[in-house]
Every structure is written in C-alpha cells, then in structure tokens.
C-alpha cells in the first residue's frame, strides 16, 4: 500500500485543500469529538478515555497523557493547560506542519484537554520563529470562536474557555516545561526545580498541564473512536501512531505518520526512500539530536518508547536524522555542541562552562589540531555535565559527545593520527567560525 493510502490519525486529512478552514475541517469530521465530549461525556470520562488509550506524550519524555491530567488537583482553580509548540529540537519538524496545515485538529484536541482538566484559560506557547504558524493559528482560533467552540458557554453547554496564543522569541530551553512556564510568565526562560511539578504549581503557581502539539492532536481521534481504536496500532505500552520526522541523507525527507513499532529500517528505506546516492548508512539520531546516536546495527529496532530505550537510546520526538558513510561525525558533533552552547540558559555552571569547553576541543579536532587523548577528555567532560545540571539540557548536550565517541571512536581518533586530507572526506561545513 502506498503511504498516502495507509490509515493515519493526525495526517489523515492533512493534504486536503483548505483543511485549515473550519468549514472544511468540519466536512471531514472536525469538531465531532468536541460535540460528543460536551454532549455525552463528563470531563472525567474524557480524561479516562485518554488514559485508557495509553497515549504517551509526544514531546520527548513519553509520559502518559491521561495520567499527567489526572495529577491535576480537582479542587484548585484556576488551572491551566499549556500547549508546548516551541518545537526546536534539531531534527524535529512535525509540529510546525500540523500547525500550518491542520490547526483545527490541534485546537480541537486542546479544547478537549481543557474540558478534561477543567481549565477555563488555556495557552499556546508558540516558538517565536513560527510567524506563519502564528498567523494560521490565530485565524483558526478566530474561526473556532466565531463557531462557538471557544469562548463563553461553548455550544450552549455552560463550558467556558478563553485561549491566548503566546509567542516565544528564540530560545531552545523554553521547550523544557518549567522554562516554558517561566517564559510565559514574562521572565527569562530559565528552568525551575521540580518538585513542585507543574500539576501542583505551574503557571502563576497554579495547577498546570503542559502538553505537546502532537499529543493534543491525537485526542480528537481517541474521543471519536475510543481508546481501543487508538490501541489497534503499536505495542501495549506505546500505542497509537507516531509522526516520524526523517531528515539528513535520505532521498525523501519529510514527516511520516507510522504505527508505533515500525522499524527504523522500514522508515528510512521504505518510506524515506533510502540513502541518497545509493550510499551506505553510517548512523542516525533516532529521536532528535539529544538522543544517543545509533549505528546501523540498530536499524531493526522498532520505533516505540520502550524498544528504543532498550536498544540504548531514546525515542524523543522520533526525529530521525540520518547520515551516510562519508559523513564526518566530528563535524556533526561539533556543530551540535555549538547549538547546545548557544542554547544553554547559563544557569548551571557544568552546562554553561562545560559546553564551551566541549566546543573548543571539538573545534581543534575538526581543524586537525587535536591532541592525544582528546576523545577521553571529551567523554570525561561530558560525564561531568550530564546529571549535574538543573534541567535536561545538560544531559542533552553531553549525549552527542558520549554516544558519538562510543559508536564512532575511531573517527575521533583518526583526526589526530590520520588527519582528513589523507581520508576520503566530504566536508560538512566549508566555513569556520
């Protein structure tokens, strides 16, 4: 079956012309889940359906969504739902497509989430760079308000919901939920210590649930079709589908919504058309740049939370960044570390200073000025960043270094013993900084 004809959840109608308009979205079954929920279900029924579906957060951590919602105290008001649309993990580009092409599926899922947890004022935290996405979402919200799906007395049921679309201004760290909340409150986007968890003291110190775009966009399907329908795909503990974002040296990069449990090999060679130029694959980041890199012997790992963890990495956002046999892993790692150095919020010394040092050593390796033992120094430094910083950014920054050297150690050592002018080598970047 061609990919286009395979069943999907979020992407089912994504290429229908004008699906971003409320009328067209309704013609394709849009807002029926909202009508059903408000007409036939109590908030706890919605919450339980999502809980029973086994939906796990698609933003990277994979925490069960229904359980997250159930942690919200029922007697403390106001409570808030915040949609994390700050998509900035290198390799990840699925949320932007949902927002641009089918904003109503996201809005409907968001409204359902608000109903489930009793939130009367919800927030979207949209990354600042999504100018067009912001405009599309604002138009969709205006349409939903005009239809009576958002606002006072939704569909005559007495349910109220106000929605504010908040924008960021360029900071990867704001994808971390507590940094996001700091930013949304108007502070520098620096993470907070947990506990208290946002479910207890989140936005404005009130109970808050932060959910990813793709997570929420799955909810209308679950309410329309039931938890069991969602569970027809994927293994017991990672049910449903996952949008796999495939980038790098493949023939057909893009977003593919595939059943959980599809193998990386299938995703890369069947859906994304294999490696460009008929070359061999050298490795891939399975879930964004913050997840340990895999060598090709992990290609048959199923794409689901537990299988990827068992194989030694993380599903993350299922952002598959693939690189071919000619790739210079030292240059890839160097540029990723420049990213983490730039995005470190500066709060914790190991992350702020450590990333600077990692970049400096990777830079000298890249320019063939490495010293004996540099690989060991890099690993030692990375080990002293991971687990010693406040939030996961420190761990994330250490990951490409630790896993890169674990998997491709000889590439790092060759930079010292046999510099690249003597190797077959395609420079990843021609300009230095």
């Amino acid at each position, binding site marked *: 079956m061609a990919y286009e004809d395979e069943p999907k959840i979020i992407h089912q109608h994504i290429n229908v012309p004008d699906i971003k308009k409320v009328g067209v979205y309704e013609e394709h079954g849009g807002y029926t889940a909202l009508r059903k929920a408000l007409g036939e279900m109590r908030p706890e029924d919605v919450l339980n359906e999502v809980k029973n579906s086994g939906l796990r957060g698609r933003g990277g951590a994979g925490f069960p969504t229904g359980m997250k919602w159930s942690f919200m105290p029922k007697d403390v008001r106001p409570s808030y739902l915040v949609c994390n649309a700050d998509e900035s993990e290198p390799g990840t580009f699925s949320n932007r497509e949902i927002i641009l092409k089918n904003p109503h599926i996201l809005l409907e899922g968001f409204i359902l989430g608000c109903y489930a947890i009793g939130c009367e004022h919800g927030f979207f935290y949209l990354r*600042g760079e999504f100018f*067009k996405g912001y405009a599309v979402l*604002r138009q969709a919200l205006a349409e939903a308000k*005009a239809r009576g799906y958002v606002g006072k007395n939704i569909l005559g049921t007495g349910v109220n919901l106000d929605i504010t679309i908040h924008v960021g201004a360029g900071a990867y760290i704001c994808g971390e939920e507590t940094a996001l909340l700091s930013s949304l409150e108007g502070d520098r986007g620096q993470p907070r210590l947990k506990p208290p968890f946002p479910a207890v003291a989140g936005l404005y110190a009130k109970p808050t649930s932060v959910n990813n775009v793709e997570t929420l966009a799955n909810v209308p399907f679950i309410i329309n079709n039931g938890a069991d329908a969602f569970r027809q795909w994927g293994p017991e503990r990672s049910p449903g589908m996952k949008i796999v974002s495939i*980038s790098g040296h493949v023939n057909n990069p893009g977003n593919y919504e595939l059943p959980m449990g599809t193998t990386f090999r299938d995703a890369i060679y069947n859906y994304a058309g294999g490696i460009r130029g008929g070359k061999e694959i050298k490795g891939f980041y399975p879930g964004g740049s913050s997840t340990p890199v895999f060598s090709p012997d992990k290609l048959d790992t199923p794409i689901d939370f537990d299988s990827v963890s068992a194989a030694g990495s993380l599903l993350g956002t299922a*952002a598959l960044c693939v690189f071919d046999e000619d790739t210079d892993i030292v240059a*890839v790692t160097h540029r990723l570390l420049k990213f983490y150095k730039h*995005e470190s919020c500066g709060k914790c010394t190991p992350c702020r200073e450590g990333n600077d040092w990692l970049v400096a050593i990777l830079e000298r390796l890249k320019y063939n000025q490495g010293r004996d033992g540099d690989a060991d120094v890099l690993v030692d430094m990375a080990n002293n960043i991971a687990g010693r910083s406040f939030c996961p950014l420190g761990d994330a920054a250490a990951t490409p270094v630790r896993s890169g050297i674990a998997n491709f150690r000889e590439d790092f050592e060759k930079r010292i013993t046999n510099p690249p002018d003597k190797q077959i080598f395609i420079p990843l*970047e021609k*300009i230095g900084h």
Partner: protein
Amino acid sequence: MLSDQAVSRIEAIAAQYPKGRSKSAVVPALYVAQRDSGGWLPREAMDEVAEVLELPASHVYGVASFYSMFYRTPVGKNVVQVCGTSPCRLRGAGEMIECLEKKLGIKTGETTADGEFTLMEVECLAACDKAPMAQINADYYENLDEAKVDEILDALRKGEVPSFAEFDRYFGNAHPVTMTDEELGISVEGIQRAENVVVKKQPEPAAAE
C-alpha cells in the same frame, strides 16, 4: 518614543493574560517595540515597554537579552537567517551560507553597507526536511538553491514580495503578534455560530461507594 499605536497594541496584548499578569506580555511587547523602532530595540524602547507594563527596566533588559530574536543593535531592512544546525548542514546549509555571503558581499553577522540586508546563522528552525532553508523576515524559504536565492534577493531589493514567500504581504521582520486582526488579515467573514447546539446531559449521579 513608542507610537500611540504601539502602546495601544501592547495594552491590547496585555489584556489577553489573566488580571494582574501583564508581565506575561513582555515578550510580545518587545516585538511591538522592536517593530516600532525600525526593526531593533534601542534602550529607550525597552524603557518604554517597562513603563507601559509597569515593570522594572532591568527586568525588561534581562528578558530582551535572553532571547535571540530581539536585536539590541541595528539590523538591515531585511534579516536573512540561515539555519546552520547539523541536520541542515547535512543537506548543504554550509554551502548556502557561503553562497549568501558571496551574493551579499558580507560575512555572517554583518549588514550590507546600504543597510538592506543582515545575514545571520541561526539554530534549528524546524524545517530540517527542506534544507537548506532560511527565514528571511517573516517568511521561511525552503529547499534553497542559487537561483531561488537570486530571485528572493532581487525581489526584496525592489521592495517586492518574493513569489514563493509564505505570506503574500511584506511585513519586514515585524512579528505578526504586533499586528491587529485587520493588519494581519484575520477574518471570520461568513462563519456562523454552529447551529445544532448540543444540550448537555445531566451526568448520572456517581454511585455511592
């Protein structure tokens, strides 16, 4: 001095947050100030944001300096931001940066002498499948090659909207959050309130435990 229009937009944005939480509006307010000040944020503009939102000026400086989309030094009329993170580099972002440097006659981080273009290398813009790509002002331009770059730069030099821009209007580098519905073209014309209003069933009383 912030224009009256800018001040009223900041106030309208602040009203979208719960009562007493107008501090939340500082980021969008800074976008408004940046637009109002010719595309960058002089200190006076930050001071005025502080005044409108009743925040300490130091707080506003702290926020402005934290985020990469606020420019505290002047930028060109058009801001060209090439994504240079590894996934894009695997698909030619390095060559694209080199190409733009050559066409514009400047290095990354610089502004052309005529003040038309500033070139920047930025971090992942969530368009890795369509690399090399760049955000130029309000628009993403994807799957770039030299011919497309020529077309884009020519159009922008003439003050026109490049044919494959995401927006059909020229917004410069102003964030759409700074715009009213009318400016942004938000319209709900012809959209009626949904008719078949559902009546909420009274939930069954929970069974005694």
